[in-house]
């Protein structure tokens, strides 16, 4: 086909190589199987708890992946990422709650509001703090996150304070809606919401993957690896950093809208709190920074742990009914998160997917050497 391969840039060559193995990569099959599991999951296992965990895994995979775009691909540590997620969640909650009667256009309005608000705030935050040093951004984002949290907590007329906002969804997404049965499974609002969230989060995730592989995504990686060099090559690195920050934040806010749809209830601690931020950070670290797909594994790990770790407490109460310290220790599962956090950072800095990729790459290299 290409008679003059010398004229192709390294990027184009890499693309060609990728395109050739597009359908034979094992990763593709893993992705398809995962997708199939998520599609048939609620039909095969009609337990609410399982469905709940699966939905949260999908949503948080998007949040963690969008965070990975900022942290792993651009090298900026933001502590306000969940704040944008919360802004999205509150957009939907407040619009449907204050309008009294949920309608279809509220959903679109909420998405538009989430995108607009988080876009503007992300630009402002980046403009104020990215100019100086990356570490400045971390501190500023922490202060910003705290500010928005206090706003959600104190602005009682708008946000109902710490009591939170509960609201209904319009039409077929409403909890009360029921449409008979399909293939033996009851078709109801919850199930439809689940599939809506599935489609939306797959779209968002694919959007992130496309963004990372776009020319802008390549520049971002170069900024992360060597900012001076990319400046010298003529890229306005500041602009790219702002772009990645805004793209990630907007995606997170859309995931927030999905989260609010699923729960039908929003309060400051569940969508704006620092602990949620730490969870997302942990998801990215466990999955592996700069891998995007790692965030799915990280989200699955954390959500499953969060759903079933409280049972540990019951176990401790059952096994050691007299030892009070053991029960107190079992109660504090954030403690184990903290320990896990440190262990992963020190001993496993590339995370699950990063380490797996390393092993595969090493094996390929060894095979290539053997063949020579």
């Amino acid at each position, binding site marked *: 086909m290409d008679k003059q391969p010398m004229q192709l840039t390294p990027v184009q060559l890499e693309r060609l190589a990728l395109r050739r193995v597009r359908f034979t990569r094992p990763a593709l099959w893993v992705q398809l199987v995962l997708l199939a599991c998520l599609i048939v999951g609620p039909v095969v296992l009609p337990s609410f708890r399982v469905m709940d965990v699966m939905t949260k895994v999908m949503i948080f995979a998007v949040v963690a992946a969008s965070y990975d775009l900022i942290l792993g691909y651009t*090298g900026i540590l933001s502590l306000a990422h969940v704040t944008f997620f919360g802004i999205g969640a509150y957009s939907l909650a407040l619009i449907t709650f204050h309008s009294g009667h949920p309608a279809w256009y509220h959903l679109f309005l909420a998405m538009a509001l989430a995108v607009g608000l988080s876009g503007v705030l992300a630009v402002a935050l980046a403009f*104020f703090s990215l100019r100086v040093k990356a570490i400045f951004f*971390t*501190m500023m984002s922490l202060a910003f996150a705290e500010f928005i949290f206090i706003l959600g907590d104190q*602005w009682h007329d708008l946000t109902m304070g710490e009591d939170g906002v509960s609201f209904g969804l319009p039409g077929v997404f409403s909890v009360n809606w029921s449409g008979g049965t399909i293939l033996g499974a009851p078709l109801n609002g919850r199930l439809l919401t689940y599939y809506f969230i599935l489609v939306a989060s797959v779209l968002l995730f694919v959007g992130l993957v496309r963004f990372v592989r776009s020319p802008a995504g390549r520049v971002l990686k170069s900024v992360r690896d060597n900012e001076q060099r990319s400046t010298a090559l003529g890229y306005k690195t500041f602009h790219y950093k702002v772009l990645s920050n805004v793209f990630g934040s907007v995606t997170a806010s859309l995931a927030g809208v999905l989260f609010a749809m699923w729960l039908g209830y929003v309060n400051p601690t569940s969508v704006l709190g620092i602990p949620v931020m730490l969870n997302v*950070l942990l998801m990215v670290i466990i999955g592996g920074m700069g891998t995007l797909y790692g965030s799915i594994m990280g989200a699955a790990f954390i959500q499953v742990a969060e759903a079933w770790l409280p049972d540990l407490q019951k176990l401790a109460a059952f096994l050691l009914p007299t030892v009070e310290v053991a029960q107190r220790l079992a109660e504090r599962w*954030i*403690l184990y998160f*903290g320990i896990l956090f440190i262990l992963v*950072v020190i001993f496993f800095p590339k995370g699950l997917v990063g380490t797996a990729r390393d092993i595969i790459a090493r094996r390929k290299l060894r095979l290539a050497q053997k063949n020579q």
Partner: protein
Amino acid sequence: MTSQAATVGLQAQGGTDPRRLGVWIVSVGIWFLPLLWIDPTTYMVLTVAGLAMGMLIFLTASGLTLIFGLMDVLNLAHGAFFVWGAYVGFSLLKVLQAVGWVEGAGLGQSVGTVILCLLAALVVGGLLGIVLEKLLVRLTYGSHLKQILITMGASLILVEILKVVWSPNDEVVMVPAAFQGSWDIMDVIINKFRVVAIVVGLAVLTGIQLVLNRTKLGIIVRAGVENKEVVETLGYNIRRIFTGVFCAGAALAAVGGTMWSIFKEQIHPAMGEENLIFALIVVIIGGMGSVTGSFLGAIMVGLAFNYVAYTVPQLALGANIMIMAVILLIRPTGLLGKD
């Protein structure tokens, strides 16, 4: 050779740059502005409260800024030291209460109580700092991301252990008898413990400045802030100095925690995190690495918080973030930060 390092350090700290003078004048002058809408008596009360709060924030922020300036470590476990100090002081306070010192009317007993509690916090905070530095922070020099993650993880662990050892609930803290209540000077009501807070804060500021400016150790630390490699080449063990500064910073945060809990008359495990936000704002405003800058920043934040909390209560923390944004717009490196 040593004296050369010293002069480099001195020039960076001192010097009468007209721009710096301007910064000083503006940052002092602007605080008389609230007199336009707050009557003078209330203004005085708020000012004393703000100064006291500022001094206490400074205790936490000074360690944070020194650790950042010298070691280039953003220590997010600082809030954990703060809250550990608060709980250790609180426990000792309870013990002393059982002995009868806290309710005792004598000034000596009350002063003794406060000093003992602060000492206990100082020791525990310092020890925690040494352990954390030797065990974890040491592994991560040079990588900001790892430092932030590690200190954050350490902070989670420390606060959770604290919840196991003490309790996760709010508790009331007794104020030593001699410092309860307030003085009334020409209708200006001055809470007694606020004065204590101001005294302690000024004492710590003087102490830090004396150590930094008048001792050899201070010269080495300041030179280290300027240029670590040169200090190492001159034969000083910079690692040991790192540990020392980390320990001192942690101890200061712990003292700040005890003072804060008596000041607020209550204690809860999340207070470290809340105070860390204040301290971060202060460090950003003052310029990272500058102790004087963080003192100025702390006073600004304390005063602004009180004035705004009196005028529009909901906006109090927002006002601090606004100040931070404005200062960063004018000077991206903070008030006294290096360019």
